[in-house]
C-alpha cells in the first residue's frame, strides 16, 4: 500500500511537472523554465521585498528573451545628440589648438573678458543664475568670441528661454574703428537693394502712365523713423546670441524704431530659431532675430541699473544743446561703494538707470518727423490741400542716470524689489534688486561691484491680460450715390411712354429736316 501511495504522489508530481513543462502554443516557452529563470534571477540579485515586484521581474524576464544581447555590429558609432553636443563643446576646452606655436603671448593685456565665475558667486548667493557648469561653458564660449572678434567690452547679458531652444545673449562693444568695416558692407548691400526697389517702382509708374491713369491713393505713409546710428541710443551695444555654448555666436541686426514699437504691442514666445517668422497682429516687421533684438533693447533700457555714483557724466563736456540728453558717461574713479543698507532702502534712490530710456517713438533721442517734410519739394496743390501738421510735441523721457525712485508703479506694484541676500548673516550680505516690471531681470551690488542679468522668457509683466489691439476698421466702400445706385426697372407703361416720346421726337426731327431740305430745295 505504501509503495502505491508514494507511487501515487510521484505520479501526481510527474503530472504536475509535465503540465508546467507544456510549452505555450503562442510564445513557445513553458512555465517551468520561466519560473526557474525568475527564481534564479531573484536569488542572484536579492532585491528587497521581492514579493511586491515579482510580477515585474517575471515580465522583465519574458521581455529579455526577445532582445538580442549580441551586438553584431562592432564599434557601432553612437550618434546620439548627447555625443554630438559633447563633440561640439569639446572644442571649448581645447587651448588654442596648438596652431599658434607661441605659448600664449598674452602679456598682461587687459582682456575684455568678464570674470563670470565671480559674478556667478554673487548671483548664487542671491538665488539667481544658472548652473555653474553651464556658466563655465558660457565663459569659455565668450572667451572664444573675444579671441575671434576685435572687442572692447564683453558682458554676459543673460538667457532667454524659448519653446524649442534657448538663447544665450552676449552684449559686446567693438573696438573703435574696427566695427565700421563690417558695417559698411552691410550698408552697401542695403542701399543696393533700396535703389533696385526704387528703379522697379519708377519703371512701374511709367508703364502705368502709358496704359491708363489708375487712381492713386491720397494716403501717404508717415515718414519712416530712421534707426539710430550704431553706438548711440538703442543700438549702443551689439548683441550676439547662441543656442548652446560652443555653437557659433550669431550677431543680431540693429534695431529699428518700428520694430520696438511693434514689439510693444505683441507678446509672443521665442522659439529658439532666429530665422523663424513672427506671426502676430499687428504684423511685426522682421523675423525672430529682430523681435529678440527689440526685446533685448527694451529689457536693457528698463532694467540695467547701477549704484548711484558708479558712473558720472563727463565734466568738461558742457551741455551743448538744450534738451539734448547727454548720452555719455564714464566710470567714476572716486566711487567708494555704497553701503548695502542704503542700497536695499525701499526708497530706491541709490540705484540709477545707466541705459537710455526708449521713447514712445522707439528711439532714445527724439526725431522730429516733420522736419523732413519741409525740406522735401512738394507740389503746391498738395500743400494747399493738406494742412501742415502742427509741430509735434517732442517726446521726452527721463535723462540718463535717473534714480529708480522715478520709475512708475505698475498698478500699485513697486517696480523693483530690493532684498538682502541673507537675513542670517547680514554683515556680509549683498544687495539684490529684482525687477517686477520685467520678471527675470536682477541686479546685485556689493562694494564696488555690480552686475545685471536677465533670465526669463523675455516678456514684460502686466497685471491685466494681454489683449491684442483691435483690427483696423473695414475700409469704406465707394460712397453710395446716383451713379452707382441700382435704379428700378421701368414698367411697361413707362417704356411705352418713353418709346412714344422718342418716336415723336424722331418724327419732329425728321419733319424739321424735311423742312430744311425743302428750304434748301427752295433756295436751289
Amino acid at each position: 500500500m505504501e509503495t502505491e501511495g508514494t507511487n501515487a504522489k510521484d505520479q501526481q508530481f510527474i503530472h504536475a511537472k509535465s503540465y508546467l513543462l507544456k510549452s505555450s502554443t503562442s510564445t513557445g516557452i513553458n512555465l517551468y523554465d520561466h519560473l526557474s529563470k525568475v527564481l534564479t534571477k531573484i536569488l542572484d540579485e536579492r532585491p528587497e521585498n521581492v514579493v511586491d515586484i515579482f510580477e515585474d521581474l517575471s515580465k522583465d524576464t519574458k521581455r529579455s528573451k526577445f532582445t538580442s544581447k549580441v551586438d553584431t555590429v562592432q564599434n557601432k558609432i553612437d550618434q546620439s545628440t548627447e555625443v554630438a553636443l559633447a563633440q561640439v563643446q569639446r572644442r571649448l576646452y581645447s587651448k588654442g589648438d596648438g596652431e599658434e606655436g607661441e605659448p600664449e603671448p598674452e602679456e598682461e593685456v587687459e582682456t575684455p573678458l568678464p570674470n563670470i565665475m565671480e559674478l556667478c558667486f554673487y548671483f548664487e548667493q542671491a538665488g539667481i543664475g544658472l548652473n555653474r557648469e553651464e556658466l563655465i561653458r558660457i565663459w569659455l564660449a565668450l572667451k572664444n568670441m573675444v579671441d575671434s572678434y576685435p572687442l572692447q567690452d564683453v558682458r554676459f547679458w543673460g538667457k532667454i528661454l524659448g519653446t524649442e531652444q534657448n538663447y544665450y545673449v552676449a552684449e559686446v562693444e567693438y573696438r573703435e574703428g574696427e566695427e565700421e568695416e563690417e558695417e559698411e558692407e552691410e550698408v552697401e548691400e542695403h542701399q543696393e537693394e533700396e535703389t533696385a526697389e526704387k528703379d522697379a517702382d519708377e519703371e512701374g509708374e511709367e508703364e502705368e502712365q502709358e496704359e491708363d491713369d489708375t487712381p492713386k491713393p491720397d494716403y501717404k505713409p508717415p515718414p519712416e523713423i530712421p534707426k539710430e546710428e550704431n553706438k548711440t541710443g538703442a543700438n549702443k551695444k551689439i548683441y550676439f546670441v547662441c543656442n548652446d555654448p560652443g555653437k557659433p555666436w550669431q550677431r543680431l541686426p540693429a534695431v529699428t524704431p518700428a520694430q520696438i514699437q511693434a514689439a510693444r504691442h505683441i507678446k509672443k514666445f521665442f522659439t529658439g530659431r532666429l530665422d523663424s517668422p513672427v506671426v502676430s497682429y499687428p504684423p511685426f516687421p522682421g523675423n525672430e532675430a529682430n523681435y529678440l533684438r527689440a526685446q533685448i533693447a527694451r529689457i536693457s533700457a528698463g532694467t540695467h541699473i547701477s549704484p548711484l555714483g558708479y558712473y558720472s557724466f563727463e565734466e568738461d563736456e558742457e551741455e551743448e544743446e538744450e534738451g539734448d540728453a547727454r548720452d555719455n558717461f564714464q566710470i567714476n574713479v572716486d566711487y567708494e561703494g555704497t553701503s548695502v543698507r542704503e542700497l536695499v532702502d525701499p526708497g530706491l534712490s541709490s540705484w540709477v538707470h545707466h541705459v537710455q530710456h526708449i521713447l514712445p517713438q522707439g528711439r532714445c533721442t527724439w526725431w522730429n518727423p516733420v522736419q523732413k517734410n519741409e525740406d522735401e519739394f512738394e507740389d503746391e496743390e498738395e500743400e494747399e490741400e493738406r494742412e501742415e501738421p502742427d509741430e509735434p510735441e517732442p517726446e521726452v523721457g527721463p535723462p540718463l542716470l535717473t534714480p529708480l525712485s522715478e520709475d512708475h508703479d505698475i498698478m500699485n506694484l513697486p517696480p523693483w524689489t530690493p532684498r538682502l541676500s541673507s537675513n542670517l548673516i547680514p554683515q556680509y550680505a549683498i544687495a539684490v534688486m529684482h525687477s517686477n516690471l520685467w520678471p527675470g531681470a536682477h541686479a546685485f551690488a556689493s562694494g564696488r561691484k555690480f552686475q545685471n542679468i536677465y533670465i526669463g522668457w523675455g516678456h514684460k509683466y502686466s497685471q491685466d491680460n494681454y489683449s491684442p489691439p483691435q483690427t483696423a476698421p473695414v475700409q469704406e466702400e465707394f460712397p453710395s450715390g446716383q451713379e452707382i445706385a441700382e435704379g428700378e426697372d421701368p414698367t411697361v407703361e413707362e417704356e411705352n411712354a418713353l418709346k412714344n416720346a422718342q418716336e415723336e421726337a424722331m418724327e419732329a426731327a425728321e419733319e424739321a429736316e424735311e423742312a430744311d431740305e425743302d428750304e434748301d430745295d427752295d433756295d436751289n
Partner: protein
Amino acid sequence: MDSEGLHLNIDYVGSSGVILSPEQKAALQTSLIILKSENKFHKVYFWGKILGVKDDYFIAQGVSCDEMAEKKTLYSKDCVNWGLLPFATKTMRDTSKLAKGRFTGDPSYEFEHTEMKKVGEGEDATEEEETISIKEEDRLASVIADIDEDVRIVPRAAFVKSPTGEVISNRSFEGLTVSEAAKLCSYMHFREPIQLHEKTLLQRADMDKAIDFLDTLEEDIPKGSWSLQFERGSGLVSVRSLLWLGYVAYHVPGTKNYGSVYVGTGEKNMDLPFML
C-alpha cells in the same frame, strides 16, 4: 522634487534659472528632515517657490504612502519655520481666481475684489457693489492646488496603481528611453484623471491598467502648451509649462531621476493663446 538629495537634484533645473542660494540649501536640508519626522510623512517634496513682492514663499509638500490621496502643503518664508496651509476647497479656489496681481509676501494680507451686482428685478434693478476679500494664505493654497492639478507631471510608469487602488511609486521604474522621453505622451498629469474616462474602449484597449491610469500631456489644450527640450544633448529632459510659467519638470532618461519644481509669481499665463 524629492527633498532627499535636494542639493543635487536642484542642479537639474538650474538651466531654467531655478537655483537656490547655498544658505537656502543648507537651511532646507535641516528643516525638511525635521518636518518629515515631526509630521510623520512618508516622503517630503520640495515643491518650489512663489515669488512675492516683499517676500517669497517656499513650499513643501508631505505625502503619505498613497501619494495621490493624502497630501499636506506647508509654506515657509525663511526655509526654517514651516506653517501648514489650509486645504483648498472648491469655493476657496473659485474665489481666489478673482484676486489679481502679485503675491505680497504677507500671509495675512487681504486682496479685495469688487464686483457690480444687480439687485432687484426689472426696472427696480439697482447696481450694488459687492466686495470680496481674499486672504493671501487662502490664495496661496488655491494657487498651489491649481498648479498641481494643471501641470504637475511625472514620467509614465513612475507611479503604479495597485489592485487596492493606492497610487504608489513604481519600484521597477527604470526611466524612459531617450526616444520615449522626447514624446509628450510619455509624461502624465499627476492628478485624478479627467480625459481618461472620455476615451473609447478601443483607445483604452492597449493600455496597461496599472500604469496608464493618468492623463497624458498629449491631449492638453492648447497644443503647444508644453516646451520639451533636451539639455546636454540628450542627457537631461526639461519639460516647461507655458501655462504656468516657472514650472519645470526634469527627467534623466534611463535613470530613476525625475522631479519638478515651480518657481514663479503664482499667476497663470492667461495670454497663452496669443503667444504661441
